């Protein structure tokens, strides 16, 4: 398949791996920021093919994992209401709230539907004027443009029975938080190519400069990740700390200006609570005043619902690269995909799910 097979070739992979082996002289810790990258690394077995000097730690870039428990409980409370059609991307449905997940709400009779685009949720609202249609608007800068577009269109078309439960988060503040933690050990970043497709990578330049850390914008195919790792190792060995772009087939320095404009029109920057990590200042998006009528949190009066994570889950440490999933005492025993303690065990981008599914213990 074009644009896929080129990035999965065994021969090119072994050439790049040889190049990494011959350039590395001492141990380095590199964090891939995106959960999609974590899954490719583990699924393709790249973590086991890299030389021992290189330690990969897994970052916070799993949108499902960082969505706070409180918001899940709010989503569940809204989805249980008889007048509501609750729409979401598929992998939010299995994420545990404090007492249930959205799939259980569906089995209890709640109208919970998987959509592939938030615009489909707007269409459902137009087709069901006697229902309240809510979309669970989570994710990083990657999903924010489409979610902004849904709200913008709903406003323009006067679709009053549509609203979003919004918990968008942003990558640069998370990088700052990781580097600001006293016990952090990250020496280089592989930045998330799809986030940068939207936002560009100019935002990372001051971070790289201030923390003297190389940031390689990296794609999601096996060869992308091996090449991104090679570029990070080369930069570390040579003592460079720049932002470099491995994913140039998709990413430019400025990103997608039209998407950014729309996001700025619909969203404003706000403090956000990251599940397992805590509140990071200016780390997310909320709806602007003009669009506040589309805020499901206000419409259904669920803002007071509070919830706290189980004490046993160490997801926060895993998502900051401090611990590996396999280091968690509950991993594979008290925490499994069937009975998860935390979101990283059930999300398609969760590090614990990758370790469990692909047999890393």
């Amino acid at each position, binding site marked *: *398949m074009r644009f*896929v097979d080129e990035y*999965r*070739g*065994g021969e090119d*992979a*072994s050439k790049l791996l040889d190049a990494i082996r011959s350039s590395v002289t001492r141990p380095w810790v590199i964090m891939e920021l995106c959960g*999609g990258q974590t899954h490719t690394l*583990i*699924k*393709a*077995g*790249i973590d*086991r*093919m890299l030389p021992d000097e290189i330690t990969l730690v897994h970052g916070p870039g799993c*949108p*499902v994992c960082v969505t706070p428990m409180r918001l899940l409980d709010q989503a569940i409370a809204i989805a249980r209401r008889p007048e509501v059609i609750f729409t979401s*991307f*598929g*992998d*939010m*449905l*299995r994420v545990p709230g404090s007492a249930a997940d959205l799939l259980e709400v569906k089995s209890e009779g709640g109208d919970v539907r*998987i959509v*592939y685009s938030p615009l489909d949720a707007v269409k459902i609202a137009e087709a069901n004027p006697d229902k309240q249609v809510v979309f669970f608007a*989570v*994710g*990083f800068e*990657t*999903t924010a443009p489409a979610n902004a577009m849904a709200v913008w269109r709903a406003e323009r078309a006067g679709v009053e029975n549509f609203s979003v439960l919004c918990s968008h988060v942003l990558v640069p503040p998370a990088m700052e938080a990781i580097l600001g933690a006293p016990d952090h050990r990250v020496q280089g970043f592989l930045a998330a190519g*799809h986030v940068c497709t939207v936002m560009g990578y100019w935002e990372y330049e001051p971070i790289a400069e201030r923390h003297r850390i190389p940031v390689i914008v990296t794609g999601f195919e*096996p*060869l992308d990740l*091996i090449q991104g790792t090679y570029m990070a190792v080369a930069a570390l060995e040579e003592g460079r700390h720049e932002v470099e772009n491995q994913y140039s087939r998709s990413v430019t320095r400025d990103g997608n200006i039209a998407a950014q404009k729309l996001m700025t029109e619909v969203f404003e920057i706000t403090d956000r609570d990251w599940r397992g990590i805590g509140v990071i200042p200016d780390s997310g998006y909320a709806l602007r005043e003009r669009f506040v009528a589309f805020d499901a949190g206000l419409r259904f009066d669920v803002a007071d619902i509070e919830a706290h994570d189980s004490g046993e889950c160490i997801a926060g440490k895993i998502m900051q690269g401090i611990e590996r999933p396999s280091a968690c005492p509950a991993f594979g025993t008290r925490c*499994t*995909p*069937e009975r998860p303690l935390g979101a990283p065990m059930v999300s*398609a*981008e969760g590090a614990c799910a990758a370790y*469990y*599914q*692909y*047999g890393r213990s």
Partner: protein
Amino acid sequence: MSDETRPGLAAGLACPIPISDYPTVQMSHGGGGRLSQMLIDDMFVAAFDNPVLAQLHDGAILDLAAGRLAFSTDSFVVHPLFFPGGDIGSLAVHGTVNDVAMCGARPIAISAGFIIEEGLPMEDLWRIVQSMRDAADQAGVPVVTGDTKVVDRGKGDGIYINTTGIGVIDDGIEISPRRARPGDLVLLSGAIAAHGIAIMSVREGLEFETTLETDSAALHELTAAMLERAGRNVHVLRDPTRGGVASTLNEIAAQAGVGIRIDEAPIPIDEEVRGACEILGFDPLYVANEGKCIAIVARESADEVLQAMRDQPLGARAAIVGEVVEEHPGKVFLRSRIGGLRVVDMLSGEQLPRIC
């Protein structure tokens, strides 16, 4: 019964139940009275017409030679009822024919039980029955007995079909998941994941450049050709339906207490299906198939079994995709295209489309 006396069939595709009288299935069609009789006679018996069914007994009476029988049942609850390349009717025939074939048997007859929701358009029922008839005719396996029930509107999903099949196992055939042993090779009959993606695309209204069709097909002629070539050296036959190739291989590994190692590169998959899986974030190894067979074969017979498969239309793209090993009993490992090794585990639930 001649065509003149087979209502509906003589007129080609017309429904034998006068639509003007009963445009939809009524509760009385399952009540045991005249309307039930009409449905059975004019639709089911007419469509599935064969001497055994024509006896209209409480059950079918079949003449069999002595020997071993394979016996399998499956219920079909697919939504939507009609999908590209097939429908619940053809699926219900193929599914059970295949389950019997995977026991190493020649299927000789199937039953059909219908649970119909009140209000199902009679025309839809007729299309489904015709499709079953066509699938059964094509497979050469008659529908010899059946049952019909009608449930209240809202208590079913249009129609559920149960089919049960029996087949005869020839001497010298010994198929069992427990017979997988280290050194055996793993063969796959063709491109994977087509059925699951076809259903998904219509159910969710996903549009791709081409229409993705189910691979639903009866595999008993393929398996017969394989068994004819290698007999007892064919150790395991399975059709990887729900849960896909990954789940089936895990089941075999667990039952036989062996490890299975497969290679990603030779596993056949159509470009369109692969593209759809990429978009949805699905691993095609876990997506359902309805016309594919996995065979575990003694190494010395693998090449000739592969050739026998490739000589059949449904096995034209067959490939050797892996081997049975002593290491890691109960587990399946996959070597990725770039050479990395990983576990292929059972899925915990359904695959859900991912966020980004």
